[in-house]
């Protein structure tokens, strides 16, 4: 077996991850918007039983000058990692712009193979390209592939194998012209004399000229570093940079001139749709209508499935309680595990539908439009459209949402987005809303849930504004984001998407939530001899200890206990309520809740659950992404205060109104 190390690089949204999945059989997240992949991921595939190819998928970059943390990952990997071949994935429908990166990669002296992806779309548009001539001109192999249709993969792999055997020489493609070349050569000479650099001398000198690295960081020899400094000071850097960019594009056009013709294509439907959905006045209403549709689906369509699951669990719980001999075991299973976990599982249909809708949002390409529409609004609070993407992803789960902030360049904007995106309600909080809205406002449940989500967005926006004005002052950076063409998502990828996310919920039910349910059951049953769920139990004491604090919000002690355990994960809240409220004889949880809570307290509870710290996992990522205990603690405390305040206001106003 021969090992070959390969990196997949390319502009955002060109299908790198799709290609990675097709080659390695992995199921990494794919979506029709730029910035899906934010970290590196390695997988392997064997080729002709002889080669083991280790492939690394990277975040997308437009050029080698990284601005955001995700781009930095790709950049660093390409410049430092020990890889044999760099595969640049190219969107065939967008050759010119994609090839800018190609010219840079060739300067680096890497073995480059071009994977001309999305060839199916180029064909459909009627593009013609002479691939052989292209690779002759560039001096590097180019292969037409289609990741989604799995075409050309074998050709690509053989090209990789061939390239890995070629000797490594820099093949700079672009002559940078009178103004730049002499400078490059001058610095190259200095670098050669110094000797201690690992990448190609040409590339390093270009990096120095473009100001991507400082001479002092690259060259440890003081004297040479100073000489480079001097050469750089001689010239107008901006002028030089412009010249470099121009020369690269000129070269690309001249390469493509004879061999590529873009198909006519009819008017593009994408453009037509965009005229409407990004319309100044209609954009936001359309967005809201679509969101409302999503909630309506999540809430209404799931109901029969939920009821079916609910009925089977109540039957099971009853069956266990009646047929178990050991009383405490019957109670553990019936009152604890089945009521708690079963009650959480009831919401599986909601969660699945929610994830289907979200993956449609991502795969069609509307997500990028949403960011674009919201940009106008977001810029008022000193953020930009890119910050809106983590928020939308947060509808599924806050953890990937917070990680998605890596695409944001400005560190302060990024921090604000990290701190505010947990207010976007994730799917784990949905059960709480569904439960209470269903009981208290059966007629308008969908609408109530929708309003709660809007409240979350409002809290996020107000908090972002507050942070921007106080702790994290600064200017926003301009918003640049490509709008990918709309695509009809494939049923397969939607189902995979939904299943991966949805099954996580079920797995959680088997672990964290099970644990939570057992703990609460134990607290509710101990010390020995108390009646289950009575106020004298440990759970009762804990609840009563904290209850006075929450009395102004109208929460009773059982709610308080549930909220405390909700720190583990928000699903535990309903699980805990199932365990605690299910206890009273003769009545279902729902009747008990209805008797125990006023409408205004329920609304207050929903908003409290919306706003306070989502779960341990989210805190974990906040800490990981900010690397700061201070900001993590800030997030907890701030959330608790806001949650309390909002719930209090709602409860108070609600009492007056009703």
């Amino acid at each position, binding site marked *: 077996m021969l090992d070959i190390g390969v990196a997949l690089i390319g502009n955002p949204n060109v299908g790198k991850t799709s290609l990675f999945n097709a080659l390695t059989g992995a199921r990494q997240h794919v979506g*029709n918007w730029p910035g899906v992949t934010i970290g590196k991921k390695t997988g392997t595939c064997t080729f002709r039983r002889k080669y083991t190819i280790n492939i690394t998928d990277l975040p997308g970059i437009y050029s080698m000058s990284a601005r955001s943390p995700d781009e930095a990952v790709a950049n660093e990997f390409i410049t430092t990692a020990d890889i044999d071949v760099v595969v640049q994935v190219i969107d065939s429908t967008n050759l010119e712009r994609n090839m800018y990166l190609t010219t840079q990669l060739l300067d680096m002296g890497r073995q480059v193979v071009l994977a001309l992806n999305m060839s*199916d*779309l180029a064909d*459909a*548009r*009627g593009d013609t390209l002479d691939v052989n001539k292209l690779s002759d001109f560039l001096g590097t192999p180019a292969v037409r592939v289609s990741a*989604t249709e799995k075409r050309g993969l074998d050709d690509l792999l053989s090209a990789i194998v061939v390239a890995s055997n070629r000797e490594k020489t820099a093949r700079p493609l672009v002559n940078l012209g009178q103004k730049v070349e002499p400078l490059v050569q001058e610095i190259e000479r200095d670098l050669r004399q110094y000797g201690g650099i690992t990448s190609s001398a040409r590339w390093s000198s270009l990096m120095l000229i473009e100001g991507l690295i400082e001479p002092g960081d690259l060259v440890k020899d003081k004297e040479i570093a100073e000489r480079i400094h001097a050469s750089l000071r001689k010239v107008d850097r901006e002028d030089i940079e412009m010249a470099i960019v121009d020369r690269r594009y000129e070269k690309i056009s001249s390469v493509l001139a004879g061999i590529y013709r873009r198909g006519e*294509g*009819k*008017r*593009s*439907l*994408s453009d*037509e*749709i965009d*005229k*409407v*959905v990004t*319309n100044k*006045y*209609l954009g936001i*209403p*359309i967005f*809201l*209508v*679509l969101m*409302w*549709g999503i909630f*309506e*689906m999540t809430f*209404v*369509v*799931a*109901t*029969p499935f939920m*009821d*079916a699951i609910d*009925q089977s669990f109540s039957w099971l719980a009853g069956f266990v309680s009646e047929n178990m001999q050991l009383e405490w075991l019957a109670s553990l299973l019936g009152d604890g595990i089945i009521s708690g976990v079963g009650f959480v599982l009831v919401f599986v249909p909601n969660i699945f539908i929610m994830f289907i809708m979200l993956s449609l949002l991502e795969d069609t390409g509307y997500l990028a439009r949403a960011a674009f529409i919201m940009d106008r609004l977001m810029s008022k609070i000193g953020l930009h459209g890119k910050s809106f993407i983590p928020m939308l992803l947060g509808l599924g789960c806050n953890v990937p949402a917070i990680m998605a902030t890596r695409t944001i360049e400005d560190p302060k904007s990024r921090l604000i987005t990290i701190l505010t995106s947990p207010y976007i309600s994730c799917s784990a909080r949905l059960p709480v809303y569904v439960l209470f809205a269903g009981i208290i406002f059966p007629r*308008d449940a*969908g*609408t109530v849930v*929708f309003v709660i989500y809007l409240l979350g967005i409002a809290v996020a926006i107000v908090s972002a504004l507050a942070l921007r004005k106080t702790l994290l002052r600064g200017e926003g950076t301009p918003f640049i984001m490509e709008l990918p063409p*709309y*695509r*009809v*998502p*494939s*049923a*397969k*990828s939607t189902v995979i998407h939904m299943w991966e996310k949805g099954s996580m919920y079920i797995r959680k039910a088997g672990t964290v939530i099970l644990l939570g349910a057992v703990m609460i059951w134990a607290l509710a049953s101990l010390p020995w001899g108390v009646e289950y769920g009575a106020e004298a139990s440990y759970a009762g004491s804990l609840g009563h200890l904290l209850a006075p604090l929450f009395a102004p919000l109208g929460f009773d002690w059982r709610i308080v206990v549930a909220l405390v355990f909700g720190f583990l994960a928000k699903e535990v809240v309903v699980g805990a309520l199932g365990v605690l409220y299910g206890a009273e004889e003769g009545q279902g949880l729902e009747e008990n809740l209805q008797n125990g809570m006023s409408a205004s307290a329920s609304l207050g509870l929903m908003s409290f659950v919306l706003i306070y710290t989502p779960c341990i996992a989210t805190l974990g990522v906040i800490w990981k992404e900010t690397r700061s205990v201070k900001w993590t603690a800030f997030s907890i405390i701030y959330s608790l205060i806001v949650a309390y305040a909002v719930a209090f206001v709602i409860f108070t106003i609600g009492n007056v109104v009703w």
Partner: protein
Amino acid sequence: MSLVLGLVFFTLGGLSILAYFLGEEWPAYVSSNGNLMLGLALIVVGAIFLTGVMRFRSDMDGEAFLIVGCMVGLSISLVTLLALLADASEAYLLMSEDFVDWVPMDDFTPAMPMMIPCAAILWYKLREFKTVKRSSS
């Protein structure tokens, strides 16, 4: 075409909102059950069509508005249709107590039949774009 659809959607949305605020017991096929959000959604669709009308008059890209209006309208009617189906399965399959005297008419909203003209126009219009719009699957 755009004008007719726009006015229809507008009226339906208006009726639904009116029913919400007046709380009158109108049959669902007039009031869409007084669903405020649905009403607003319908108004938005109406607005898309009417914008389209204005654009057509000034000879600009009204067509885009017609298409997107149909898309959004179609999605809304699909949602209401699925809601109806969900309630139906609740009533007939699970025999829930809450649904003993449920009849399909209770959930029938006027947005549903709007599906037909929307789908028809979409199907007709989208053929013009066929070559560009190829699915990614």
